[in-house]
């Protein structure tokens, strides 16, 4: 049933790109608010990507305060239509916990899976509560011998600027030829829990302005189709995508662009490029695949990993740009 809905969603996405969303933009609204990811200070909610398909994932969370802090840990499996498992935990002052996601308390099966983990402060268990005390990081160690490591992110820092567009640098340093472009969309239900679903997504790029663009290091620019990230592995709606054909997705998921930017002319010894991903809005569907109005507390977190499939790799959050009060649309460029 859900797969049928997802197929229908892809059909409606085309219509949405052509009709509905540009009309919303012309009405003067339709650009959602997507706070830039916070990975630098203590927060109340942390988002981690995990992947156990040929990989091990370890998440670490630390309570930096002098108080007890209760947390609610949720695991969303994108490969299983975003099915959720969860448990509560109490962090003592200064406590740090490191979990292999396949060995979470509760014993739920997260093997050969990918998705995300949300850790939120929880004031409803007998522990304690303190704001902005949580910091986190995760390690994804691939069986091919490389590691992705980065700080976990929070996307609910309202002192943050809006991410109007995102800058994803990529290159073939040390032979990089694979990528993991991760986009996590979730709904903040309450202070202590989130919700995610294949029916909630984040849209980047229009068919018209502003488009997804991909650059090489001699400023050859191509436009790419709009792309949506949801909590699923359905082609076109994946939580994890590749950049383009020259640096495709590590796990075989689809590419955002149909170019081969790292196969072009090389300046110096290293080839490079970057992906311009303008955030448009959140996009939501009903169970039958029809477009639906999105709830107000949707958030997005993005991670980018690149690796050489052999021994080296690295990951960090997307870098974003904010126009502040101003919005400038990028003119339409060549199609891919």
């Amino acid at each position: 049933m859900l797969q049928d809905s997802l197929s229908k969603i892809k059909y409606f996405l085309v219509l949405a790109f052509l009709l509905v969303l540009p009309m919303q933009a012309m009405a003067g609204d339709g650009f959602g608010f997507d706070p830039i990811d916070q990975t630098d200070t203590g927060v109340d909610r942390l988002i981690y990507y995990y992947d156990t398909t040929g990989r091990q994932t370890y998440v670490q969370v630390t309570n930096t305060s002098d108080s007890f802090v209760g947390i609610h840990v949720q695991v969303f499996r994108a490969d299983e239509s975003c099915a959720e498992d969860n448990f509560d935990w109490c962090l003592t002052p200064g406590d740090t916990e490191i979990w292999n996601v396949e060995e979470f308390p509760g014993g739920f099966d997260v093997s050969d899976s990918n998705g995300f983990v949300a850790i939120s402060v929880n004031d409803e268990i007998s522990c304690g509560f303190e704001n902005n005390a949580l910091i986190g990081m995760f390690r994804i160690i691939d069986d091919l011998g490389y590691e992705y490591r980065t700080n976990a992110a929070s996307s609910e820092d309202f002192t943050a600027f809006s991410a109007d567009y995102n800058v994803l640098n990529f290159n073939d340093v040390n032979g990089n030829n694979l990528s993991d472009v991760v986009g996590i969309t979730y709904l903040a239900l309450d202070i202590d829990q989130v919700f995610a679903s294949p029916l909630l997504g984040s849209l980047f790029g229009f068919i018209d302005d502003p488009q997804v663009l991909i650059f090489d290091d001699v400023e050859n620019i191509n436009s790419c189709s709009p792309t949506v990230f949801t909590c699923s592995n359905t082609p076109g709606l994946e939580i994890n995508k590749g950049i383009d054909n020259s640096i495709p997705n590590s796990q075989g998921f689809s590419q955002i662009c149909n170019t081969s930017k790292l196969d072009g002319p090389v300046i110096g010894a290293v080839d490079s490029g970057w992906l311009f991903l303008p955030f448009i809005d959140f996009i939501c569907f009903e169970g039958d695949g029809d477009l639906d109005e999105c709830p107000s507390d949707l958030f997005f977190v993005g991670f980018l990993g690149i690796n050489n499939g052999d021994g080296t790799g690295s990951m960090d959050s997307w870098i974003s740009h904010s126009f502040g009060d101003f919005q400038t649309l990028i003119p339409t460029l060549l199609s891919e």
Partner: protein
Amino acid sequence: MISKLRFSLIAVILLVLLGFGFQNQANGQAGENAQFCPFVEISDGWLKIDDIIPTTPINFTAGLIGTVEGVNGNVVGGMDWMHVDFTHFDAPTPTNQDGAQIVTWWTQKEGRNTFVQLTNDGFDFQWVHARILDENCVEIRNFCDFYTPGDTHVYDFGDLITNEGGTPDDNVLQGKEGFLTITAVDECPSPDQAVDYNFLAATVQIVDELDYVYGYNAYHRRAVCFDEFFTFDVNLILNGSFQDGFLGPWSLAQGNSNNAGVIQSSGISPSIPVPPCQGPDCDDPDADLFMAFVASDDNFPGGSYGQGFGPNTILGSLADPTFINTAVTETNVTVIQSNFFTPLAQFDAINNTNVVEYDLRFLAANDLLFTCDNYAAVCLVNVTQFVDGTLLPVAQLVDCDCYNRNGNGNLTGEQCADVGDDNVAYAIASHEFQGGASSLFSGVLSNANNFQTYVVQVITGQKTNDGCFNDTFPRADTGALVDNFRNIETLEDFFECDGILTGAFNAFLTSFTPTQLAGQFNVIDDNEAGGDAIMINFVDEYLPEYRTLAAFVTAEIGIFDDLEEFQSCGDVLVCFVRLGIDANIPISEDFSSPTPTPGTPTPTMTVGPSTTPPTTTPTNGGGGGSCAIAGNPVQLGTAFANVLIPLVPVAIAFGVRAVRRRKK
């Protein structure tokens, strides 16, 4: 028997408590063995760098933490920025948002190669200037580069080629490390000033010869550039408090020059204090020193108000032989007149009070035998027609206040005020005001409408009644002391930021000066591991060109394990430093094994301190750091713990032997 057993038990307990109690204190000094926490054996925990206090001016403090270990026969590693207690209001997410300057660690030490990818994600052509500092926080290389809109380029520190194709000499970088900034500048190499261009996005990859990568976003500092508007008040009536010490630009519009002037308090006898200054003129140091006098005196005869002036003059158009509208004509009138002023005519004016305020003290004629209607008046006169080109201009009395001793007469519909006097005879030069002086009055004239032109006049006059213009006893000299004339206008101006960052409050790169850093780490399954924990500190110098300079901080180092046990590791004084985390995660140079060795024994405490803790700066044996890693010696815990703890099994054995002997 029982007492021996009890003794053993007590000894064991005491040894345990003392030994491990001391162990919770510093086990060594931060920096020793090229580790932040030497002799501490924690594989899973977090490093806390606390109480960061700058000892020099500073604009940036940040830390990185990374580890490397062998997993399933592969060497894997990763790094990211340490968490902070606060960032900056204008840049709350500096590692995930582009900016006008990027900051990162770089290293070409120990077989590593650094790659920095810089993207211009904006719409302008842009110069940048890279400044590369070594571990002593000394700049050892810098170069300019230029980016077109949407341009991206990777700097390979082992073979440096700029985006423009230049080849700055990179030999000086090999075998060294430190930190670098790349700053958007107006033009490079000159004038090379930092600019407001928040479109630089950078990622860093440091490739180790053991085939692992530390990869992370650079730190991004946003430029803040804004115009700050401010307002200030001006007095449109020039020399309104006569602070210049003379009458001008007020003019003697009618009367003898002896009848008006500027005096100090001693210029009248007995002296009368100058009214306290009011209004914007009070910043002048002489604002409370002077006041003006105006007098009518038959010794210096003259006509009635406006008498003898042509019809196309201000006075002539207002001429009136009975100015204050009593039946008796007037004589010996004296008039002083202010400059022309027009409320809200200035382009930067945003408000005007539309009133004229002043202070006045009436000087009365002798009233021993009778009182006169001799008067003093202050008038707001509309003279717009005299400036707008009207062919036959006419002035208009808008609002007047008049003062005398009978209360007779009126001006602009208001009765003159009987202001009283103190019956003291005053003299200003040859003028004698034998009736006395009134108290001090503050008056307000309205309305001075916007975009109309006005003058203020102070008028004194005598009536032609017998004795009211007499210059023999009783003298009929009449006058006024006046001061603090003001029509207040508010103007707006602004501190401008023209895009060049000067370090001023409205033109700067966001500073990041946290007081705490927190770096998480973990090791999988007790693998052999190495680590790099880095601190970077610097200060900006904006003019005449932007430069990155060394800055130093002190900080207290501590470490938590995964059982929330905290250990203090002493403190440091650093500009740049790279160290391992602790004994379980030593500096990465000491990591060489790609796989864990089966059966490797867990390290044990040795009897006695393994080293004598230093009190001076340790050498950089395998570590990286600026010249100063020094702190307070906290070594007692190490010594006692190392002695007492190993004695615990001895004490237990002693007690067991005692029990066995008893059983026998």
